[in-house]
């Protein structure tokens, strides 16, 4: 279990991974449980249509129909709760990756072994990315399996595609947190800044149809790469995957370069 920095990092998170997974299973179960009553309540769709446009853009992906399984899940889970859960984990793990070990003063112990700083950053990144994908997979699996119990039938292929995009969204912000953590060693800053930016990116993407200046920068928002192409209906958008993967690669590279240049806190 303790064969590498990667294995050790995953091992350290064992209990927290279980807790996150359980939470995701329960969240999805909650949405599944509510589904029958929403479906039988056609007025829900009217209710959403009557909401102010800005409000609808913020909390419901436009064009989704609440009375269909995909529309319901898109509005209820994918627009808000799903991203929040995945981002919370990924940003927390990224921020704690380097700074956390410095806060606990164990970085000296780790680095006094023949392990390069680049290796440490790379392994911490891999751990964060693997767990983010795992959590997305748990969410996707819960959606498909729990959905079947209540006739909330979702296409498994498209769910998988959506979860891929969701995981990439998480890893982009997690990598930003990791880069800040590697460059500064300050856990609070590395957590707060990406969280704030995620909110901004969310708003930019959601309000782009209404605000002209947002419309111009919408495509730079990771939320645009995640949801704009409606993955639950249209599957994987490879161009979005490439943009996300490229962003992640640049951030991890910056994290390695920054950590190799600075003093390690005792």
């Amino acid at each position, binding site marked *: 279990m*303790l064969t590498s920095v990667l294995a050790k990092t995953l091992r350290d998170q064992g209990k927290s991974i279980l807790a996150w997974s359980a939470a995701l299973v329960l969240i999805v179960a909650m949405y599944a449980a509510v589904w029958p009553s929403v479906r039988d309540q056609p007025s829900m769709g009217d209710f959403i249509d009557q909401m102010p446009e800005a409000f609808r853009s913020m909390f419901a992906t436009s064009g989704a129909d609440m009375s269909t399984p995909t529309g319901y899940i898109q509005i209820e889970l994918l627009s808000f709760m799903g991203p929040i859960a995945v981002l919370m984990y990924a940003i927390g793990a990224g921020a704690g990756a380097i700074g956390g070990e410095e806060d606990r003063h*164990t970085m*000296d112990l780790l680095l*006094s*072994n*023949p392990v390069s700083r680049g290796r440490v950053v790379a392994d911490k990144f891999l751990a964060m990315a693997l767990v983010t994908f795992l959590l997305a997979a748990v969410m996707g699996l819960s959606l498909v399996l729990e959905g079947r119990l209540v006739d909330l039938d979702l296409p498994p292929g498209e769910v998988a595609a959506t979860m891929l995009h969701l995981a990439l969204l998480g890893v982009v912000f997690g990598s930003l947190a990791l880069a800040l953590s590697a460059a500064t060693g300050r856990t609070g800053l590395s957590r707060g800044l990406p969280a704030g930016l995620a909110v901004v990116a969310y708003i930019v993407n959601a309000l782009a149809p209404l605000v002209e200046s947002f419309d111009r920068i919408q495509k730079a928002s990771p939320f645009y790469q995640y949801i704009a192409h409606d993955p639950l209906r249209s599957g994987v958008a490879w161009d979005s995957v490439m943009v996300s993967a490229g962003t992640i690669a640049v951030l991890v590279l910056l994290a390695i370069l920054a950590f190799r240049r600075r003093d390690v806190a*005792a």
Partner: protein
Amino acid sequence: MPTETMVRLTDLRKRFGKNIGLDGISLTIEPGEVFGYLGPNGAGKTTTIRILLGMLRPTSGTSEVLGLDSWRQPVEVHRLVGYVPGEPALYDRLTGHQHVAYCAHLRRRDDRKRSLELADRLGLDLERPARTLSRGNRQKLAVILAVMSRPRLLVLDEPTSGIDPLVQQVFHAILREHTAEGGSALFSSHVLGEVERVADRIGVVRKGRLVAVERLQDLAARSLHQVRARFAEDVPAEDFAGVPGLRDLVVDGRNLSCSAPQSALDSLLKRVSARRVEDFECAEAPLEDTFLSYYGMDRNGSTENTAAGRHAD
């Protein structure tokens, strides 16, 4: 293997913002040598050590271990070095065994057997998680982790401050075995007493500068004798002031007291015996006192009452 210098620090400087951490440290440590690195807290000992380990980037100057640069080739340097930090930070949830396993994997070695043997000698239970260990036991685990891979250089930052005297003896034995195999050690402390039994040379660092480097043997030769004499009648101080090397001379009526190095004893005795002596006492001072009188550190490592001049050679 030819005797290649183990550690070479060349004009090492480190600034932290406006504060100067190191102000030009140069020193070498040879194979088989234990170098005692002495200085008060905050003088730059830990900064030197962390530059040597590649944790800090020197502002200027270089640090090399067997010719490898600490900052540019940290992985190669770490393969040669075992490090015991002053405040050993461990992974709270891991046991001793798990620490051993993790570090051994990172070093791509199998050190389990050696770690068991060391734990047995030091009297440490490797089954317990680190968070339940006392300071002394954490120190022991840190020593095991540093020593088990048989490094060429041991870097010890005040390693015995939490360890009881019996364990300290075991620790010194381990250190002697290490040097007998050609290994070197850099051993930092704020008191001479901690290093005098193991160090071959000592360096004194103060405010980021190395103010003295000395063989312990030479220091012992300069060791001072505490001399006290009572005469039958009052004596003038000038009679004794001329003796070379004499320190702390006090003449008060019929009483004389002073500290004298070996070299001054003959001349001092002749002048004393020229008068009628009622009482005479001569005792060799502990090395610590000699050291303090030369380098003016008090026993807590503070340098406020700097009495003597610098004796750098």
